């Protein structure tokens, strides 16, 4: 068994003169849920297409289950569940007929397909839909793509924008399937503009910017400053002056007597700051930690 289901080393790819992927190193361990984020045109889809063997790198190495994806080995693809920009269904066929085709090429028996659809998709509108897929709504097509991706419970899932056009119910259903895949030991790479699924599932997050991949620290930020919200009653100039002298990393004045301060050791510094403010006749109304969302982290990175 390979230690890394997905591995890329010094991956480089340029389109004409622009480097879209520049020395990208990526290692996904078994059971990793890796979120890939970045602005439009950052190279997320290009990276995914390289991992899937749809594009060939200019230089560098990619291994998926120990194989070069450019060799296009069908046995490797059968271990994978993929969601790409296009649904890939034959529009003139029903959802079920399409699924029968994909089951046959994936080596999933018709019985297993029926069992999978019965147990996981019975409650959805696509389960009993007899119309052709071309008449499906965008959300239904995405659901159908998700159904295909989890067919046979693949060992590796690579999803490019998997929650686009999903309604709330379908969204929750997707989550339940992801959790089941996790329980079955799946490794997953999700690229998404919607950060919620990445925040909810991924233990690792990579940011692609100008073709370079860097990893955000998730849940392990002991050595980083954390943001706190401080609500005080007093003249802003005075507050600014006191905080300027206090052991505070950064100070950002907000509206309505609210200040944002970055602290490295809050347990030690908060009593100190409160004391300094009180001495200057400034009332401290509230001080609480700020929840750092992935969006905030990304904004912080961009700053």
């Amino acid at each position, binding site marked *: 068994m390979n230690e890394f289901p997905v591995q890329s080393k010094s991956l480089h790819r340029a389109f004409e003169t622009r480097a879209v992927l520049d020395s990208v190193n990526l290692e996904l361990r078994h059971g990793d849920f890796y979120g890939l984020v970045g602005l439009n045109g950052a190279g997320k889809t290009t990276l995914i*297409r390289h991992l*899937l*063997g*749809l*594009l*060939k790198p200019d230089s560098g190495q990619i291994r998926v289950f120990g194989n070069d994806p450019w060799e*296009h080995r*069908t046995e490797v*693809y*059968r271990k*994978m569940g*993929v969601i*790409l*920009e*296009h*649904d*890939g*269904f*034959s*529009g*003139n*066929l029903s959802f079920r*007929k399409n699924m029968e*085709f*994909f089951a*046959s*090429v*994936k*080596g999933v028996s018709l019985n297993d397909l029926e069992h999978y659809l019965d147990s996981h998709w019975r409650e959805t509108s696509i389960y009993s839909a007899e119309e*052709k897929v071309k008449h499906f709504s965008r959300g239904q097509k995405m659901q159908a793509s998700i159904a*295909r991706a989890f067919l046979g419970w693949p060992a590796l899932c690579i999803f490019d924008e998997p929650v686009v056009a999903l309604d709330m119910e379908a969204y929750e259903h997707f989550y339940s399937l992801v959790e089941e895949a996790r329980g079955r030991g799946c490794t997953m790479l999700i690229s998404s503009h919607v950060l919620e699924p990445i925040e909810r599932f991924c233990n690792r997050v990579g940011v692609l910017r100008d073709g370079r991949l860097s990893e955000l620290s998730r849940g392990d930020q002991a050595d980083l400053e954390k943001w706190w919200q401080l609500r005080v009653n007093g003249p802003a100039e005075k507050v600014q002056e006191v905080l300027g002298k206090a052991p505070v990393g950064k100070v950002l004045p907000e509206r309505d007597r609210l200040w944002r301060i970055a602290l490295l050791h809050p347990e030690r510094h908060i009593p100190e700051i409160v004391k300094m403010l009180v001495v200057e006749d400034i009332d401290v109304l509230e001080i609480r930690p700020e929840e750092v969302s992935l969006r905030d982290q990304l904004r912080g990175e961009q700053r």
Partner: protein
Amino acid sequence: MNQVMAVMKREWASFAGNDKGTMFVYVFILLVYSAVFTVNPYETLAARLWWVFYSVVVVSTVSGNSMISERLTGSLEVLFTSGVSRSAVLYGKVAYGFFMALLMGGLPFGVSRLITVSAGNPAELHDAGGFLLYASASLVNITSAAWLSVQLPNPRLIHFVNLLILSLLIGVKLTTGMADVGFGVAMVFASLVLLYLARRTFHGEKIVRKVSL
């Protein structure tokens, strides 16, 4: 082989799932061509031109669509990453195209011969030779469509290039005076060359590049 059959069956099911209006057009074309081949015996120039037209425009529209449509929608990417080999996709589509060519050519050919025989005129052996020529020409069309669907920046041009290829082949036949059978074999050989080229392009990167009409 199973994968080729699966792709072929998928193509056929997709064709059979066409809207009623589209199917009506196909039936209408088959009926018109049955009449055309009944009133134009094979040895006439008109019949030969109708066959060429039929092979290039009607049949290659069906097989060409099968090659191009998935490139336009981008669904080939999903197909390639679903566990079916690229070669199986190619061979399945070519096999489907050839099957359709035989079906769509065989029906009007058979109906026209039936009408001819029913009218008391014996079916000539060279009629069958004509059909073999049509079948081999269709194979050239289909394999070149597979190759050109990747090579041409605008797949809409496939039919024109196919027409050009067949015109060249007909030119060779007329100038060399090749027999029908020999010419048919030459076209099958040309098809194999085109199939080899198509296989190479199907394993390349160009096939998943975005294309628009």
